[in-house]
């Protein structure tokens, strides 16, 4: 499935091994079975060591990048008109955040992303469940969904500008539309692939259709739904930032980056890029944390 492949691309690297968050202190059941219960109690020292190794793994990548950037600057390899020194960039970014409007722009972007995402999620989850519940309905809707999902969201800017005007509405609407498609697709896919055995089990206990739906199918679908939600919010961020660049933007990270480029405010531009990246990463990570906590059974 193409969508799922995209999904895994969106996962930040550290979270990609299954159960990655608990890798240090939670042992999977297979392992317990093989190794016996005493293996479960790792010594405290091992735990701390694992913890440090994890931090080291995460920090080493950015550290190397900054080191290379720094060295390149020191040895004068960089064209400082295009790539300023890391120190100057960070100082400038700090000023833009504390004294300038960078955080305001970030908040505006976040606001739009969350609005778009909320609209998309509220509309997509019930719809996905309905079309997923009936395979024939899904097959007939699949083409349409796939078609619009494959249409570049950016190609629809003009249309959305015509319908919703140049303000926030069109940006949010377009982001919501894009996120809606990807969420619907994943929810429907989750419903279709719900394990039939659990439905049969509940039915054999005499559960009514409504009960089976809420007690089994809905919960069964949640892991896939969350994959869709996570992909949806990432996509919403992309669309919002691009829309801010082109659809009559007055604020937001997209608008800021475009302005920086035109005014040749290069340091601020790099700072904005870093901050936008941090925003995207945080959104994704927050969802992964929610997922790990609420959908603890996913993939088990």
């Amino acid at each position, binding site marked *: 499935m193409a969508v799922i492949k995209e999904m895994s691309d969106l996962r930040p690297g550290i979270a990609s091994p299954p159960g990655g968050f608990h890798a240090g202190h939670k042992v999977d059941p297979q392992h317990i*079975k093989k190794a016996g219960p005493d293996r479960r109690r790792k010594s405290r020292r091992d735990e701390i060591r694992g913890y440090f190794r994890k931090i080291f793994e995460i920090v080493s990548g950015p550290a190397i990048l900054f080191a290379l950037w720094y060295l390149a600057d020191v040895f004068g390899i960089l064209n400082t008109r295009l790539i300023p020194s890391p120190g100057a960039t960070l100082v400038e970014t700090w000023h833009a955040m504390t004294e300038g409007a960078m955080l305001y722009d970030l908040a505006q972007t976040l606001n739009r992303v969350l609005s778009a995402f909320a609209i998309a999620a509220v509309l997509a989850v019930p719809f996905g469940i309905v079309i997923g519940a009936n395979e024939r309905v899904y097959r007939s809707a699949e083409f349409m969904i796939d078609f619009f999902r494959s249409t570049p969201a950016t190609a629809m800017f003009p249309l959305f500008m015509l319908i919703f005007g140049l303000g926030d509405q069109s940006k949010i609407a377009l982001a919501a539309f894009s996120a809606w498609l990807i969420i619907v697709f994943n929810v429907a896919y989750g419903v279709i692939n719900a394990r039939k*055995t659990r439905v*049969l089990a509940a039915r*054999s206990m005499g559960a009514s259709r409504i009960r089976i739906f809420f007690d089994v199918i809905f919960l069964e679908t949640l892991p896939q739904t969350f994959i869709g939600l996570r992909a949806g919010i990432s996509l919403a961020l992309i669309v919002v930032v691009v829309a801010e660049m082109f659809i009559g933007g007055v604020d937001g990270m997209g608008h800021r980056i475009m302005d920086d480029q035109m005014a040749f405010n290069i340091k601020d531009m790099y700072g904005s890029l870093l901050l936008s990246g941090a925003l995207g990463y945080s959104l994704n990570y927050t969802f992964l944390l929610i997922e790990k906590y609420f959908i603890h059974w996913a993939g088990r």
Partner: protein
Amino acid sequence: MDQKGGQIEIRELTKQFGGDDVYRDFSLDLTEGEIISVFGPNGCGKSTLINLISGMMPMDGGSVLYDGKTIAKTRLSYVFQNYRDALFPWMRSINNIHYPLMIMGLDKESRTRRVEELLAEFEIKIDLHRYPYELSGGQQQMLSILRALITDPEVLFLDEPFSALDYETTLFMRERIQRVFLKRKNTMIFVSHDLEEAVQLANRVLLLTRRPTRVAEIVPVDVAWPRDSKTLTSPEFVAIKSHCLEVFSREVNRRGGYETDGTER
């Protein structure tokens, strides 16, 4: 063993898969209060049989009566081969056992009482506040069995319940299931692909033919309970097992020897 003594009457059971008869006018009488194992060649429809008579799968024709009652009016429980797909991973193990009683509309107090009784009866030492996926395979299947038993079913169906477990766990589970049976005397009908298991755990072994499926023979196993690993090597057990194997081999090697109307039986 004949405590409940009711009859399970299967009449003219018919089921087709893609135009092929799996069962055509299949009739059979079984006695309640016994363990019946179902054994036969690959693809003969062992699981299909218990799926049909438990109401899990709609039949194309025929009827099943449990002591004169229809499937809908009989308390039936079902244990699946794949416990991982059958348990509810979003619920703690203990709530998995509660769930069938919740469906029946029992309040929390009486549910808790019944669950505690059941756990005490079988001296369950599993940490039931864990989630199912945190338990070992054997524990998960034990949990499935407990979930099936909590409603005190008149008939318990088990579809190859131990085939996903390793041999050591299987032996342990065979011992536990015998204990369940000796205490509860629920009728149990179970499918097995392991002849030793099919004979060890049954009052009667139902041997099936190739499709369209008929009864090849019903072999009584009059060996004292409980049947431990010593039983497995006793002469009487071995004799019954080799008889079953004989019938089984004959059926495996016979090809297309049956008329679809079932006259040759």
